[in-house]
């Protein structure tokens, strides 16, 4: 075969719309940890807000993460994926495991993080962001976190609440405290 192949055109994204709730089932939903957690259980919760500071009541959040050892899809019983629609107040809550450190490109390790997709009416395509942890090891050297401008980096870091296993992470779609989103 000679010459470069012309790639097929990608199917364009369209909004998820407001009526997805009766579809898109997932075992456990927003509970990734399950009844026999294989690691440190945490809860990550927050609100999704629009550019006027109003709650986004019809978003779907999806997360994808490594297991407690830093491996993706490697452990039985921990799929590493979960889904949570927001409620009327724009709130969501995931119960999951504190992720281990996965390999970084070019060697070394990434800081503990959870990849998040944000889908909603009014979003023509998925927004991708990352949840880091204020007490996570290696945040200062993380190659992806470091791409965010210093003054906006805090939007990617979940804050520990009450000294326990509860982390707060708001998703601000637009405005002064706009969450950093990545083109992945």
């Amino acid at each position: 075969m000679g010459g470069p192949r012309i790639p097929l055109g990608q199917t364009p994204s369209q909004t998820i719309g407001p009526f997805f709730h009766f579809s898109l089932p997932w075992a456990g939903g927003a509970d990734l940890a399950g009844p026999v957690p294989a690691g440190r259980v945490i809860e990550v919760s927050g609100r999704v807000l629009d550019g006027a500071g109003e709650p986004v009541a019809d978003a779907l959040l999806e997360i994808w993460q490594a297991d407690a050892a830093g491996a993706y899809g490697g452990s039985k019983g921990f799929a590493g994926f979960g889904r949570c629609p927001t409620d009327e107040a724009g709130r969501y809550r995931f119960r999951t495991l504190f992720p281990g450190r996965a390999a970084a490109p070019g060697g070394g390790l990434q800081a503990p993080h959870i990849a998040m997709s944000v889908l909603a009416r009014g979003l023509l395509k998925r927004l991708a962001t990352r949840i880091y942890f204020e007490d996570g090891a290696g945040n200062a050297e993380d190659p992806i976190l470091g791409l965010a401008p210093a003054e906006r980096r805090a939007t990617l870091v979940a804050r520990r609440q009450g000294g326990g296993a509860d982390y707060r992470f708001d998703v601000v779609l637009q405005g002064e405290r706009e969450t950093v989103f990545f083109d992945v």
Partner: protein
Amino acid sequence: MTVAAGFAREDAGQPPLLFPDYRSTALRAPAHPPIPAPLTVTETTGPAGPWDRLMGAAAADLTTQAGGVAQGQRIIVGGRVLDQDGRPIANTVVEIWQANAAGRYRHDKDQWDAPLDPNFTGAGRVVTDDQGRYRYVTVRPGAYPWKNHANAWRPAHIHLSLLGAAFASRLVTQMYFPDDPLIALDPIVHAVPALLRSRLVARFDIETTRPEWALGYVFDVVLRGPDATPVDP
């Protein structure tokens, strides 16, 4: 494990985040452009099943889910899930949802004054075979009004959700029907560049059509996947 394999980036067919004619984008599109990031193992991996355990049994026939037979024009929709290099994406789940034949969703917040069909739920999921093929049976959804602008109507459409092989492949889209005059008036479709909108429209296919039973449509889905020629690791 490959950590930083080459991976196809978005092509010109993807819509922008801010598209003023689609009014809901005004307060929801981020003001800052997404920051380009190299893909790590986080983005080049994704959930891989077993789908029955994670999503329940496949639901490939939406016309007989609720006891009786759903109202409306029975149709077959099938196609292949491929990456940009034409490689089939096998064993990936295709989730769908849609309004019924009258244009009404089985959803508490759908207030459109069209009848619900007790025999139609409108949600399904199928898993692609080793050639990336999927196929389901449903009814042609109706158009319905929405409040985006005066006399606004959504063209008939089926929502599709695909996880693909990796976090980076995630796609949620809508499939439209050929010869629907509402496509030309729809701001959600119009967010896609004009020359590339046909990627969202299924084609009628007489081979998929079953005699004396159902009309057939073909809709292939192309997801972003690993590059044929990896860039430097």
